[in-house]
């Protein structure tokens, strides 16, 4: 597999943006300016980007409560997201959604979701729409190892096979369902892909900390889905660098676990180690992207901090289109 310089640099920029967005939120949350629950995507960047670099705006995704990475990878406006997470009136969802409910249907981002497992059937519905439109588009449900235990996910996988639609179930196995270990909570010997296979669809597995592996395997999966019009699944073995939510004391972690993961399973480090195999990219170019990204995140935070708060007079707007 060889990739163009543009493709390589874009993928890195997306991962760097997610990483810096989340690392910065981790700091900003401590200041008390960000209300509510926040679930950070740090560590899983290669998963979202390895999948979404194959997509365009007509392809659709549904996301999870840990959705910032999927939003950025699908192309949501980063400043709009930051404002949303700060709860500001011109946030991407007017301050009514917050961290767990970011969506932009104009780019095929059908919504992050506060309910674990709720998105999978919605992706099947979007895939039904894609099949009817006959436009070759796909719909992807991002799910975690937690959502793989929800009945909705089982129902969705079965329905997708029964109706034969281009729905793709991406299971990001970060080894923790909230605070519970996957070895305990996933009965199929920690293996999620085999569940999809049991429902009658093809399933792939990839290293979800390695952009190149995820991207390559996802490419094979998409070739199959777009050609056959059938559903498929992929399990991405990935890592969560922070807790379930910000403020989680993470007493369930082994001593030194996060330090080890950051050393050996960091998507950005792995990218730098491997990029030479896929095309000529200079490390200085990646450094420059890091700097540009840092400046962009700085600006986004600053804009969010200074943005107008929500107006209480708007509390009942947009409940309905017409009522």
């Amino acid at each position, binding site marked *: 597999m060889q990739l163009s310089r543009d493709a390589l640099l874009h993928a890195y920029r997306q991962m760097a943006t997610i990483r810096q967005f989340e690392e910065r939120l981790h700091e900003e949350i401590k200041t008390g300016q960000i209300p509510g629950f926040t679930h950070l995507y740090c560590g899983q960047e290669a998963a979202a980007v390895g999948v979404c670099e194959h997509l365009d705006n007509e392809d659709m995704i549904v996301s999870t409560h840990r959705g910032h990475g999927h939003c950025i990878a699908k192309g949501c406006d980063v400043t709009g997201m930051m404002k949303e997470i700060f709860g500001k009136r011109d946030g991407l*969802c007017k301050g009514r*959604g917050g961290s767990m409910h970011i969506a932009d249907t104009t780019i095929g981002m059908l*919504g992050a979701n506060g309910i674990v497992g*709720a998105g999978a059937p919605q992706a*099947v519905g979007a895939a039904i729409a894609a099949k009817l439109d006959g436009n070759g588009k796909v719909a992807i449900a991002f799910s975690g190892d937690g959502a793989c235990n929800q009945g909705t996910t089982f129902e969705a996988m079965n329905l997708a096979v*029964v*109706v034969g639609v281009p729905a793709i179930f991406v299971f990001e196995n970060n080894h923790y369902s909230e605070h519970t270990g996957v070895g305990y909570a996933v009965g199929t010997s920690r293996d999620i892909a085999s569940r999809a296979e049991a429902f009658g669809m093809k399933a792939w597995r990839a290293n979800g900390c390695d952009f190149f592996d995820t991207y390559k395997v996802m490419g094979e999966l998409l070739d199959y889905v777009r050609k056959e019009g059938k559903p498929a699944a992929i399990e991405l073995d990935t890592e969560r660098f922070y807790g379930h939510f910000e403020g989680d004391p993470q007493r369930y972690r082994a001593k030194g676990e996060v330090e080890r993961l950051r050393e050996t399973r960091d998507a950005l480090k792995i990218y730098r180690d491997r990029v030479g195999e896929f095309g000529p990219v200079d490390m200085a170019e990646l450094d420059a992207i890091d700097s540009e990204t840092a400046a962009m995140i700085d600006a986004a935070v600053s804009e969010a901090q200074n943005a107008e708060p929500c107006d209480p007079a708007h509390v009942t707007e947009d409940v*309905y289109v*017409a009522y």
Partner: protein
Amino acid sequence: MAIMTIRDAINETIREAMRRDKDVIMLGEDIAGGAGTAGGQEAIGGIWGTSVGLVGEFGPERVIDTPISESAIIGAAAGAALAGKRPIAELMFSDFIGVCGDQLINQIAKFRYMFGGNTRCPVVVRLIYGAGMNSGAQHSQAFYNLLTAIPGLKVALPTTPADAKGLMNEALMGDDPVMFFEHKALFGKKGEVPEGLHRVPFGHARMAREGGDVTIVAFGRMVSFAEKAADALAEQGIGCDVIDPRTTSPLDEEAILDSVEQTGRLVVVDESPPRCSMATDILALVSEKAFTSLDAPPQMVTAPHSPVPFSKELERAWVPSPDAITAAVRRTLDWG
């Protein structure tokens, strides 16, 4: 105007909508019916007969028989709607909202609001409801009150063939999620149905009877019972306004308040247990906004606070009756 049943009015309205708009699709259990069987995919046409012939005309890609997976049915309808379709999802019994509650109350009800007003989710969920067929505790409930309590959902409950058509067209041409409650005992009810694209706007009550002495607000099948009671009372010289709100969300408050301001007497008839019901909701509305107009304490005619029983004798005792409505009307007149 053609005379037809509510069942046929719903079937015809959906058929016309699917002809008019290729984005209208259907999902549900057995709605085509018989998929994967020797009888063939049109063997059933929906257990209520409301989707007979549709799969033949529009094909299994648009009239989708689903596995028994209510969360997936409503969830898939939600996703298809976000992707630009106008799905009609059928819950064979409204009792099944317990199975797919999340997709109804946390998902489709909230997308537009929590995503900042940038999305539309025009799902029509058909919920077949109601007691009177000895279907037991899990296949007989009238849950329109539960979904009326959820901001973001609209709730319609047609009681005539014309309104079935008009409200269904309104639901299919609007951009909000609509919970469309169809009483299983009303499917065979006949009436005139206007030709063409007949629409009934939501939030506009129908005055089923005008009498002027007592206001009866009734919901769903209870409208027929209220009409029966009103007709009997009319023969005794007591005139009742019978108001069929047609939609509980939005609710035509004005029609109810206007009538109560004239009559000073209110009876609400609701095929639900009494607590947190449409009956208590209407009483609260009138207490708050028409308190000084009342000449007697408002009366509720509801089911008792129990599950719906099975046996004929018990179920008959459970469902509010025309006699109970008559008695409630008399209580408002005899008071003081």
